[in-house]
C-alpha cells in the first residue's frame, strides 16, 4: 500500500529496549570512537557560536552603544537571548529586519530606516553595526550604505557608527569580537593620534571574556598598582548592573572619549591573543607606546607573568598587597593539593581560555588529558603542547583541534577522566561520563552567579581550586558508605 506521494506505508514500530541498550553500549566503544572521528561533514554539539555574538558582546562594552544587527531579526533575538541567559541581565540590540526583498534589492533601505528608528527610540551615543549571514552572502556594501545614511539624514553626522563584517560562515564568536573591536577603535580614534601626547594610561583588553568578575578583578589589580587605565570594551557594568528599580539601556561601558584617546596611551595590553589578533596587529601599527599581547592570567605562573609585565610597563614593583595575595593563593594550593593531585581532566572552550586551564591544572599536579577546541588552530595547538611538554603532569595530554563535544564524549568513554572544565553545553557528556563539570567558560545557562566570581589572578586561582576540590569532597561524601562517612576530609 502506498499513499499519494508514492511513499510506502509502514507500521509504526517503536524502538525496542533491547535495541536501545545495544546501541547505548555501542556508542561507548572504541569502534564507535573511530567512526565518530572519521566524520567529514557532520558537526555535532560544537563548542562555539558564530561571529556576530562576539560582536554583540564587544559592542556592549562601550558607553551608550547600541548593538545593531544588519540582517534578519531572528539573528538579533538569538544573540540577545544567549547573552541574557548567561548574564541574567538585559542585552539590548536592534536589527534592521531584512527579509526576502532585501535579498533582491540589498539591505540599504532596511539599514537606513533602522538607524533612524533606533536613534529616535534608544538615543545611543554610538551605534555598532555588525552583519549576520544574509547581507554577507548578497554582498551588501556597508561603507557606502552608512555614508548614504548620513548624507540622506537618516543618521546624525556626529554619531559614531562603526561597522564590522562578521560572517557566520567563517571563524567563531571570538573572531566577531575581534572585528567589532577593531572597527570601534578605528572609528573612535580616527584623527585623535597626537604627536607627543601620552595619556599615561594603560589600554587594557580582556577579549571575549564573559565573566564580569574577571573585569572587576583586573580593575582591582590596576588599582593596587596605582596604574591609570582605559579598559577597552568594558562589559562589567553593562552585564552586571545594580538592581535599584531603574532600568538603564546603557548602564556602563568604556567612555567613548577615553576610548578615542586610547591611541595616545602609554601602553596597550591584551590578554586575548586569539580573540584580538587582528585588532592587536592594527594597534601595533597605529597606537603609541608599548604593545603587549599575553595569555589570560589564570593560575600562578600566568598571573606572575601578568603582574611582572605591569610592573615592567610602569616601572614600579609589584605591590606588597598583591605579593601577599600570591602567598595566600599558594597557601590555598598547598592546603588543597591532595584533593586535585593526579586527577585527570578534560577541558574544552575558547582558544584564550584553554592555555589558562591547562597551566592551572599542571600547577596543581592535576593531569589535563583531553584538550579540545572546536574552533582551534595550529598556533593554539603549539601553545598548548608547549605547556604540556613543560610539566611531567602533561605527559598524558593530547590536543584535539576542530573537534566537537560529540568527539569529546567518545574520548571520555574510551579514555575516562575524573572531571571536565568547560561551559554548560558539556553537561550531557559529563552526565554520560558520570563526572563533574566545572563551568569556567561561556555560556553558563544552568547555574547562577558564576559569571560574577573571577577566575583570573590569584583570587581567581583560589576560586577555581576551591570549587574543584570541594566538589571532589562532596562526591566522596555523597557516594561513600556509612563506615567511611567521616567528620574530617
Amino acid at each position, binding site marked *: 500500500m502506498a*499513499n*499519494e*506521494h508514492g511513499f510506502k506505508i*509502514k507500521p*509504526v514500530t517503536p524502538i525496542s529496549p533491547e*535495541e536501545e541498550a545495544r546501541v*547505548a553500549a555501542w*556508542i561507548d566503544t572504541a569502534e*564507535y570512537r573511530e*567512526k565518530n572521528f572519521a566524520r*567529514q*561533514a*557532520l*558537526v*555535532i*554539539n560544537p563548542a562555539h*557560536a*558564530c561571529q*556576530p*555574538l562576539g560582536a554583540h558582546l564587544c559592542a556592549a562594552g562601550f558607553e551608550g552603544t547600541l548593538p545593531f544587527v544588519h540582517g*534578519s*531579526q*531572528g539573528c538579533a*533575538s*538569538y544573540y540577545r537571548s*544567549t547573552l*541574557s541567559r548567561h548574564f*541574567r541581565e*538585559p*542585552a*539590548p*540590540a*536592534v*536589527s534592521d*529586519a531584512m*527579509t526576502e526583498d532585501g*535579498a533582491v534589492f540589498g539591505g540599504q533601505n532596511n*539599514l537606513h*530606516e*533602522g*538607524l533612524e*528608528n*533606533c536613534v529616535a*527610540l534608544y538615543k545611543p551615543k554610538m551605534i555598532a553595526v555588525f552583519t549576520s*549571514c*544574509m547581507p554577507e*552572502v*548578497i554582498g551588501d556594501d556597508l561603507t557606502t550604505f552608512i555614508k548614504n545614511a548620513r548624507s540622506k539624514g537618516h543618521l546624525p553626522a556626529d554619531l559614531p557608527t562603526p561597522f564590522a563584517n562578521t*560572517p557566520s*560562515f*567563517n571563524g567563531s564568536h571570538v573572531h566577531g569580537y575581534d572585528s567589532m573591536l577593531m572597527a570601534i577603535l578605528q572609528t573612535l580614534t580616527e584623527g585623535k593620534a597626537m604627536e607627543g601626547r601620552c595619556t599615561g594610561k594603560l589600554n587594557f583588553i580582556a577579549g571575549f571574556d564573559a565573566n564580569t568578575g574577571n573585569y572587576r578583578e583586573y580593575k582591582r589589580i590596576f588599582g593596587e598598582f596605582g596604574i591609570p587605565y582605559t579598559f577597552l570594551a568594558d562589559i562589567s557594568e553593562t552585564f552586571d*548592573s545594580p*538592581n*535599584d*528599580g531603574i532600568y*538603564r539601556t546603557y548602564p556602563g561601558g568604556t567612555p567613548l572619549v577615553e576610548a578615542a584617546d586610547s591611541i595616545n596611551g602609554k601602553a596597550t595590553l591584551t590578554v586575548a591573543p586569539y580573540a584580538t589578533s587582528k585588532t592587536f596587529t592594527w594597534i601595533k601599527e597605529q597606537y603609541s607606546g608599548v604593545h603587549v599581547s599575553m595569555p589570560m592570567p589564570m593560575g600562578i605562573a600566568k598571573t606572575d607573568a601578568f603582574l611582572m609585565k605591569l610592573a615592567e610597563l610602569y616601572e614600579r614593583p609589584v605591590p606588597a598587597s598583591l605579593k601577599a595575595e600570591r602567598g595566600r593563593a599558594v597557601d590555598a594550593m598547598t592546603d588543597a593539593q591532595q584533593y586535585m593531585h593526579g586527577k585527570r581532566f578534560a577541558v574544552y572552550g575558547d582558544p584564550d581560555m584553554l592555555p589558562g586551564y591547562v597551566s592551572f591544572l599542571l600547577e596543581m599536579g592535576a593531569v589535563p588529558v583531553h584538550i579540545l577546541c572546536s574552533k582551534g588552530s595550529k598556533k593554539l595547538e603549539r601553545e598548548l603542547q608547549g605547556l604540556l611538554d613543560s610539566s611531567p603532569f602533561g605527559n598524558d595530554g593530547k590536543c584535539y583541534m576542530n573537534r566537537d563535544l560529540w568527539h569529546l564524549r567518545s574520548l571520555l568513554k574510551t579514555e575516562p577522566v575524573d572531571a571536565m572544565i568547560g561551559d554548560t*553545553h558539556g553537561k*550531557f557528556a559529563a552526565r*554520560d561520563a558520570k563526572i563533574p563539570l566545572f563551568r569556567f567558560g561561556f555560556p553558563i*545557562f544552568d547555574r547562577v552567579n558564576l559569571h560574577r566570581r573571577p577566575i583570573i589572578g590569584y583570587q581567581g586561582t583560589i576560586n577555581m581550586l576551591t570549587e574543584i576540590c570541594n566538589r571532589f569532597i562532596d562526591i566522596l561524601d555523597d557516594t561513600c558508605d556509612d563506615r567511611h562517612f567521616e567528620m574530617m576530609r
Partner: protein
Amino acid sequence: MSAHKTVPGITRASTQAMIDRALDAYPEKGRAKRAPHLTPNDPDAQSPCVKSNRKTVPGVMSARGCAYAGAKGVVWGPIGDMIHVSHGPVGCGWYSWGTRRNLVSGKNGVSSFAMHFTSDFQEKDIVYGGDKKLSVLLKEAKELFPLAKGVSVLSECPVGLIGDDINATTKRMAQELDMPIIPCNCEGFRGVSQSLGHHLSNDSIRDYVIETREFHQAGPYDIALIGDYNIGGDVWAVKPLLEECGFNVKATWTGDGRLEEIAATHQVKLAVIHCYRSMNYMARVMEEKYSIPWLEVNFFGPTKIKQSLRKLAERFDDTIKQKVEAAIAKYDPEMQKVIEVYRPRLEGKKVMLYVGGLRPRHTVGAYEDLGMVVVGTGYEFAHNDDYERTAPEMPEATVIYDDASEYELEKFVHELKPDLVGSGIKEKYVFQKMGVPFRQMHSWDYSGPYHAYKGFPIFARDIDMAINSPTWKFVRAPF
C-alpha cells in the same frame, strides 16, 4: 453591549492616550507603521483589533525570531527520535540547542537526539554550495545514530541565497539510506516572523510525513494532541489526564513526539489543538483530507480545563462523558484548595503579558482563577485569527499590542505599573531592573509543567513566588 470584564481606571480613552504617548518618540514613518499594531481592546469587535503578521519595523528592538526558529525550535525540534540538522553556519543551531525546554523521552544520542547537528558552513560551502556536504553528512548521521527514525534538514539563510537544492538532495538520500529525510526551506529571511517557519514545517509534514505510517490498532477514542510542545513536561501533564478521561492519545505534536506516530495521525478520530497558531495548518489539512475534525482546547487553569474537557466529551459517547465528569469531580476540589491558598495572596494583582503562540490569550483564565487581572496582552507573531480569539478573553479597553518593541513595552509598564510581567528572556531583566516581578512565559522560567491539573498548582506557586518574594523589597536602598 454585553457585560464585559473591566479594570478600574482603564478606559478606551486612557489606553489610547497611553499608546499615543508611547508612539510620540517614533519618527513619522515608524509611528505610522506601528500605530495600527496597538489598540485598546474591544471585546465585541467583529474584526481583528490590530494589524498583525506584517514586517517588523527595522531598528525598533522587536522580540521576534525567524522562520528557522519557528521550524527548528518550535515544530521539528521537539520530535525526539529524529535528527534535526541545522543546515548552514554553526550559530542558528547553537543558539536553539536546548533553549526551549521541549523535554523528550529516550536515551540521548541513542534513541532521542536533543543535540546540535549542523553542516557548519564555511566560506567554501557558500562559494561551491553545500549539497554535496549534505549528502555526506546524512550518511554519517545514519551510521552514527542507527536508531534515528528520520532526519529533518532545516535550511538557514545562506542555503536559500546560494541556490542549493536541499529538496533534490534529501529525496535522493532518503532513497539511498531508506529512511525519512525531510527538507524544510525555512531560511530565516523568509516571511516576517517565526510564524512562517511553523507553516513551512506543517507543509513539510503534509508533504513528507503524514500517511506514511499506520498504527497496529485503531479505536473509537483515538485522538492526537496537537500543538503541545512539552515545555517543562506539559505533555506529561496533559496526556495522562486525557487517558484518564478514556482517550487513547496516539500521537503528540510535537512535544515528546515520535516521528512514526505523527506519520500515522491520519487515523485518529479527533485532533485536539492546544497551540492553534503553530499547528492549525495541519489540522485543516487532516480535516479536508481525512475528515478528522479538530477542536481547540485550553489546559491552563481549572476553569478552562473544565470547559475544555466538557467540550471534548461532547464529541464522544457516554463512556467518555462519565469519565470526564469523574475526572473533573476528582481534580476540581484539589484545584479549589490550591486557589484557597494562593488567591488571597494574589487577589487583584495586575499582569501584563507579551508572548507568542497561544499564551497571550490562553493563560488569561488561569490568572483569573487566582483572582488576578490581565491589563495588557500581545503576541510576537500572531495573525488576525489570534486577535479575534483574544478580544473576548481580555477586559474592556485594556491595551493590545502586536510585535511590540521593547520601547513600547517599557512605556506601558511604566504607566500601568503591573504587579507581574509575563514575557520572554530578552524582556525579563529589563523589567526586573525596574523592580517589577517577572516570569518567563515561553519556558515557564525553568519550571513547569503549567498545563492541566498537574500544572496549575505549579503555575500558582510560581506566580505567587514571583510576586511575593521578599527580595523585591530591597530593590530601593534606604539611604
